[in-house]
């Protein structure tokens, strides 16, 4: 089959590799029909999440058709049109039973590095480096999905591909960001980052009862989407001072709930950004411009929900603001399996619609170009989606 292969930092190529086969009776083989880029891939391409090996297939937000199942798989069948949650659950461990699927004890077969850096290993993730299991990714004709009954979901008839695809990652991640924020009626919610994740967090905040949603980014086309598709008010951080603007927009209180949908490669303007950048180049810490700002701006007693990904250590973390303003910090890789059925419902009722995120449908062979467009936010690219 053809697959998009990581060969080194910022070196992707589409190559011919062997097809996967059923290895465990709990597996499914999915023929991939659409596979999207995600902000998380950028951390891998840039080498910020180590433990990639040349030859790894990347990609983890995808849908397709089940072509084969192991003998113990009962929930999905050959021919089903499905999406897959790539943060793998086993369905059996303490954490999966609590529906904290991304904390699964059993799906990272290579937990030692994670245990060394984080104390315990989270779930394994498809297409997400050997630190999280070395599971082959989805930018390929076929993919092997373990524990299919837990991680593969049949798409309801009425939902078209361009909406269903994002229930694999952007929708549940955004939704979880809003869910963890604990939104109450009357709340003002500020979202840093207008990528796929941020925009879905905005739509979710509305679903969960936010009174107003404020979107923060610097790309006009993304901000415009946030206004038109997610009903957000806009702040461009290259044009205004964010803390000042938020203070003014909230009558001096600050947003009740702040959601970081940016992560470790945050871009910024001030001294703090240059400081982080220099340290990150030296591989010591990550860029937390957006998270610092969210903590700084959040109202007293409010919640900061962190969906942007961080890998190891951050510097100049404003712990004082958390303690003295009595903030709650929530975070996690998405527990997608917990939300899929609910999200299908929101999409069927028209309350959530991610289809506009698909700005660049491309053949798999143009994968490297797709990543260039996405990484550098060229031609208004929000999500490049490959069809193998």
């Amino acid at each position, binding site marked *: 089959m053809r697959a998009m292969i990581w060969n080194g930092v910022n070196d992707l190529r589409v190559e011919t590799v062997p097809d996967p*086969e059923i290895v465990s009776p709990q597996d499914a083989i999915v023929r991939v029909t659409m596979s999207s880029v995600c902000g998380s891939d950028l951390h891998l391409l840039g080498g910020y999440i180590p433990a990639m090996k040349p030859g790894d297939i990347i990609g983890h937000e995808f849908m397709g058709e089940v072509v084969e199942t192991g003998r113990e798989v009962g929930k999905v069948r050959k021919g089903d049109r499905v999406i897959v949650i790539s943060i793998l659950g086993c369905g*059996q*461990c303490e954490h999966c039973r609590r529906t904290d699927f991304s904390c699964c004890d059993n*799906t990272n077969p290579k937990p030692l590095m994670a245990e060394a*850096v984080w104390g315990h290993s989270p779930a394994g993730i498809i297409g997400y480096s050997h630190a999280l299991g070395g599971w082959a990714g989805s930018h390929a004709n076929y993919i092997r999905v373990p524990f299919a009954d837990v991680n593969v979901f049949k798409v309801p008839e009425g939902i078209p591909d361009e909406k269903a695809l994002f229930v694999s990652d952007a929708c549940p991640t955004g939704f979880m960001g809003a869910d963890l924020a604990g939104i109450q009626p009357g709340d003002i919610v500020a979202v840093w980052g207008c990528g796929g994740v941020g925009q879905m967090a905005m739509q979710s905040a509305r679903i969960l009862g936010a009174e107003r949603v404020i979107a923060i980014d610097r790309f006009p086309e993304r901000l415009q989407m946030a206004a038109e598709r997610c009903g957000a008010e806009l702040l461009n951080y290259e044009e205004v001072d964010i803390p000042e603007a938020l203070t003014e927009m909230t009558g001096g209180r600050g947003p009740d709930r702040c959601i970081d949908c940016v992560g470790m490669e945050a871009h910024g303007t001030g001294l703090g950004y240059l400081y982080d950048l220099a340290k990150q180049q030296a*591989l010591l810490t990550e860029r937390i411009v957006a998270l610092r700002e969210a903590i700084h701006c959040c109202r007293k007693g409010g919640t900061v929900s962190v969906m942007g990904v961080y890998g190891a250590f951050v510097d100049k973390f404003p712990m004082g603001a958390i303690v003295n303003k009595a903030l709650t910090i929530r975070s996690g890789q998405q527990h997608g399996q917990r939300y899929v059925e609910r999200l299908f419902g929101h999409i069927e009722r028209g309350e959530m619609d991610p289809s506009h995120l698909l700005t660049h449908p491309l053949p798999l062979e143009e994968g490297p170009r797709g990543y260039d467009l996405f990484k550098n936010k060229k031609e208004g690219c929000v999500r490049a989606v490959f069809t193998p």
Partner: protein
Amino acid sequence: MALIQGQSVDSAVRNALPPRNLGDAERLVSGALGAVVALWAIRRGGLAGGLATLAGAAMIARGTSGYCPVTETLSAKPAERQIARKQGWRSAAAAASSVTIAKPVEDVYRFFRDVANLPRFMRHVESVTVIDETRSHWVVRAPLGRTVEWDATITEDRPNERIGWRSDAGAQVRNIGWIEFRPAPGGRGTEVRAAIAYEPLAGQLGRLVAQLWGEEPGKQAHDDLRRLKQVLETGEVPTPALRRADADAAMPDAA
């Protein structure tokens, strides 16, 4: 940090666990540095990276537990000396680990008591053949492509609580071990604690060699218990292999 698991257990093995021999400041520096070296090493990949990974991982262990395995490998721990004296061995290597399994104590005990199941999760155990109610024959992969064999006897069997065993007279590698089962709080299944001690093939030198080949007993114990959990909870040891042939070749490497 899990490379050398430190909690728990009865007195012999408690003593076999890492003593604190580093000062606080040294521990902090060692910990931070270790994490960075581990990250750096894995980014680089390759052989030099692999060795640095080992060093990095070891430094983290040292930073978090106050215990330094690098200096420790050169001199036996007091409890190991004690085990060696008590068992009449030249020297002893000991390791302990613990894990929680989301299954009732009865299930975990029953699975482990059927010693023929052990190769399903103990990576270095090639086979265990039941001889009679308490005795079994073990074939184990050793460093440098060799295998070693011995007969073992279950010396203690308290259903749903504890199993202890030791190798019979004349074993190629003399060893003892036990495993304990205890209900986990909050209905979370079973807490399992296990400890093993063996007489290294050629004294301390053999142990050093074994560690270089990645056969360090503390890591093995940790990996084996994780696989026991995987088998009992999910029915398999998950592997990212894309093809059956690759999966069958070996249980996945945890690093």
